[in-house]
């Protein structure tokens, strides 16, 4: 009952000013997961212990393993997509869910245990002064290292987006980020599903929609499982697709503004 009241008062609170949003913040931790049964329970449990006040939503992106059941067993809400639509589609589902259920903050966390739930606080607090907080793995204390063409692609994307944003975004491909009410409104309507669209594309849409994007240092671990493949061909492809994704989003203005108005 209490939460319902808060959510109805929310629009008023936001009009008054950002300082007050903390009082009413109702965060949703969204975890897009595709066949992550090995790590999903640990991630959900950790998130819940770090953020007891937050709801946890696992968006099961067409998994064929036990991801959905395992996540539900440790207390996460589960939304199961009928087939795999990619991280972008899974996140838009999460934003739709957040909007309809009256959440005013969404934090995206990877299901593979790459992100440290201890950073959730920082990403949520950052929403007091920004619409989107991007967790960056590149900072003084970071142990994360990327090299070769993949690094060039990241530097290129970072330069371009930082320039658009008039503020530094050192890690635009980071999937560890949070979104406030204005970003939830935008992303529940318009969230790209293409490769890199869920990270770079969504930031570009947000900046063009007039949202404020800030960043915060976070800890990221290397993937324990999966394929951080490092051969030259893959890296070259990555660079090419990253550039294409960036160029495509740069020219994608009209549709965004229309969706924003609607």
């Amino acid at each position, binding site marked *: 009952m209490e939460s319902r009241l808060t959510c109805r008062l929310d629009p008023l609170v936001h009009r008054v000013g950002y300082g007050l949003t903390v009082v009413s913040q109702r965060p949703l931790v969204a975890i897009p997961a595709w066949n992550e049964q090995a790590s999903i329970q640990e991630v959900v449990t950790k998130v819940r212990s770090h953020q007891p006040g937050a709801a946890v939503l696992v968006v099961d992106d067409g998994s064929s393993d036990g991801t959905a059941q395992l996540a539900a067993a440790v207390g996460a809400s*589960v939304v*199961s*997509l*009928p*087939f795999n*639509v990619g991280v972008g*589609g899974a996140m838009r*589902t999460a934003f*739709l*869910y957040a909007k309809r259920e009256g959440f005013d903050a969404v934090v995206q966390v990877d299901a593979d245990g790459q992100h440290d739930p201890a950073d959730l606080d920082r990403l949520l607090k950052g929403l007091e002064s920004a619409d989107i907080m991007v967790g960056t793995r590149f900072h003084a204390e970071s142990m994360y290292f990327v090299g070769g063409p993949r690094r060039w692609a990241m530097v290129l994307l970072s330069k371009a987006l930082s320039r658009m944003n008039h503020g530094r975004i050192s890690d635009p491909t980071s999937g560890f980020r949070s979104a406030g009410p204005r970003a939830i409104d935008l992303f529940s309507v318009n969230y790209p599903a293409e490769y890199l669209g869920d990270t770079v594309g969504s930031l570009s849409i947000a900046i063009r929609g007039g949202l404020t994007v800030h960043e915060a240092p976070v800890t990221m671990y290397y993937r324990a499982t999966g394929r951080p493949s490092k051969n030259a061909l893959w890296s070259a492809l990555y660079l090419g697709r990253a550039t294409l994704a960036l160029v495509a989003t740069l020219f994608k203005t009209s549709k965004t503004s229309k969706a924003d108005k609607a």
Partner: protein
Amino acid sequence: MTTNLIAVIAALVIFIFVFDLLRRGVLKEKYAVLWLIVAGVGFVFAVVPGLLDIVGKALGIGAPVNLLFFIMGVVLLLVSVQLSYELSRHEARIRRLAEEVALLKNAWEQSREKRSREHD
């Protein structure tokens, strides 16, 4: 003359085939129209043998048959682009539907749980 006859028959077969698909409601109008135009233009060129040469000469094309290939290339390209466009639109719509289905399923399961708890 036989080659012309073959062309006429081919154009007619395409026309009848496409029209039949349209009649049975298998093919939607927006796709059928393009193919009917292709069949129609092919028919005209097949029936009037000199037409291709006349048009080709008028456009300054040495071998008129190249005009035919060029037009065919352009038409096929346009059709492919149209299909890619439709496909992209459908992908976006299907994705949207998948999201809605997932959310509805979640809402339904929750209300069912709530109801069964109330019964207990």
